[in-house]
């Protein structure tokens, strides 16, 4: 696969850039469950090297999303206060590289595992300030009308209901059995809806520790926008605050700043005053959405469609943690 892809890429990129490239090295990056991601080093005849990132759709992926979604989301934040890679190209068909893909420039920096404590030490404060401020900027950003139009689905239902319906459908289609804790959580969400936020924002959909690049004390890029959509800005905040991303230090979300400090920073940057009851709803929603993703991963693994160990890991560890989060939230409501 890799040799064939290299040869296809060489020919495709030479045509795209109108330059004769002769050497390419594709190195697959471990961890992405929804796309096959490759680090590409490509050289022309004068030995000039370019560093690129190629994201290919998979036959079977954890979350079925279109390349166009991610491309449009990145487009919305080019040259903004939200650092994102520079886009080069996108294709929704498989005629060029055998699968739909997106190509962008490689950014400096590394991504950490969201499950490793103190991974940003000694720069937790600097990175934390940027992490929560950037999320506030995403919530605050006015979306270009063309991009807004592309993302609009024309549903008359409130955003919370569209999102909840979507993930509950995944749970009920992919579950291996009935999980009473999760079902109780779903019923609670439908019975106690949040007040719809007046602000419609671009929601990243997976804004969390591990989905950004950093170099020492600086965040260099926000990645993995494949679940982006229009919606309530509290959705991203609830997801980013989820205790799953700081399981061994729950009061310090994403192993960065203390929870209250993070919330205040987000409020200041987004210029949105949070209704604490609504935030609680979105935090429970985050755990239910997480369960949908982990259940879907378990189903992919069990059916043999995709036996990448990350699918088994997702079903076991994050699945357990989010179930416990649901239990904690529901119990605190009795």
């Amino acid at each position, binding site marked *: 696969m890799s040799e064939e892809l290299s040869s296809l890429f060489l020919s495709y990129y030479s045509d795209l850039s109108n330059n004769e490239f002769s050497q390419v090295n594709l190195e697959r990056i*471990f961890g992405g469950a929804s796309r096959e991601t490759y680090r590409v080093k490509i050289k022309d005849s004068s030995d000039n090297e370019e560093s690129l990132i190629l994201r290919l759709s998979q036959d079977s992926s954890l979350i079925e999303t279109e390349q166009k979604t991610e491309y449009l989301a990145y487009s919305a934040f080019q040259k903004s206060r939200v650092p994102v890679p520079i886009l080069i190209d996108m294709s929704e068909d498989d005629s060029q590289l055998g699968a739909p893909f997106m190509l962008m420039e490689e950014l400096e920096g590394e991504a950490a595992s969201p499950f490793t404590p103190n991974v940003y030490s000694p720069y937790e404060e600097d990175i934390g300030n940027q992490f929560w401020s950037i999320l506030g900027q995403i919530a605050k950003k006015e979306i270009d009308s063309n991009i807004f139009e592309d993302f609009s689905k024309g549903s008359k239902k409130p955003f919370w209901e569209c999102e909840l319906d979507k993930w509950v459908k995944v749970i009920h289609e992919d579950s291996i*059995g*009935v999980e*009473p804790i999760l079902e109780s959580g779903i019923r609670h969400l439908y019975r106690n809806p949040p007040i719809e936020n007046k602000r419609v924002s671009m929601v990243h959909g997976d804004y969390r520790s591990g989905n950004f690049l950093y170099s020492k004390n600086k965040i260099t890029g926000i990645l993995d926008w494949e679940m982006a959509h229009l919606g309530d800005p509290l959705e991203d905040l609830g997801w980013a605050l989820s205790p799953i991303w700081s399981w061994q230090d729950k009061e310090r979300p994403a192993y960065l700043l203390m929870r209250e400090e993070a919330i205040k920073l987000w409020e200041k940057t987004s210029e949105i005053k949070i209704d604490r009851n609504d935030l609680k709803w979105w935090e429970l929603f985050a755990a239910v959405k997480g369960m949908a993703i982990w259940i879907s991963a378990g189903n992919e693994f069990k059916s043999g469609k995709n036996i990448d160990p990350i699918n088994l890991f997702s079903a076991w560890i994050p699945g*357990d943690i989010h*179930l416990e989060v649901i*239990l904690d939230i529901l119990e605190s409501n009795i």
Partner: protein
Amino acid sequence: MKPDINIALLNAAQEIINRFSPLIDDEYERSRLGSWGALILISAMKFNEAGSALQKENLEIIDWLLASSRLDEKDVNPYRTIEDTCKSLEELDQDNQALRVLLNKEVEHLEKKGDGILLKSVFSLFRSMHQRRKVSELIGLLQQAES
């Protein structure tokens, strides 16, 4: 006496993580093999207790349903394990699925009624079920193995 299956898995995991994975140059393949090692390690830790844990969970659900729900003996008896019979893991799992469906329906009924006392008791059952099943407490062990 032969070594237990969980001991075999434990050793396989250690070999994968410490011996074979570092030999692979390709970063993606190395990480993938390392993840397999970690998952086999979890399997080894949970292997021996899988059957008895399911049996205990089924019994706990039956006890709660009889004490706190609208159901009676005839509803739950098919899912009981009689003392001198031995059910396979698959049979225990099937019983468990059926009991979870019954439990879910009864909890929904309590939620509609708003019965706080019984809801508290079911959350205590949920906690116990989750505590017995979860493998997330092994996350520290995984990190140790990977480092």
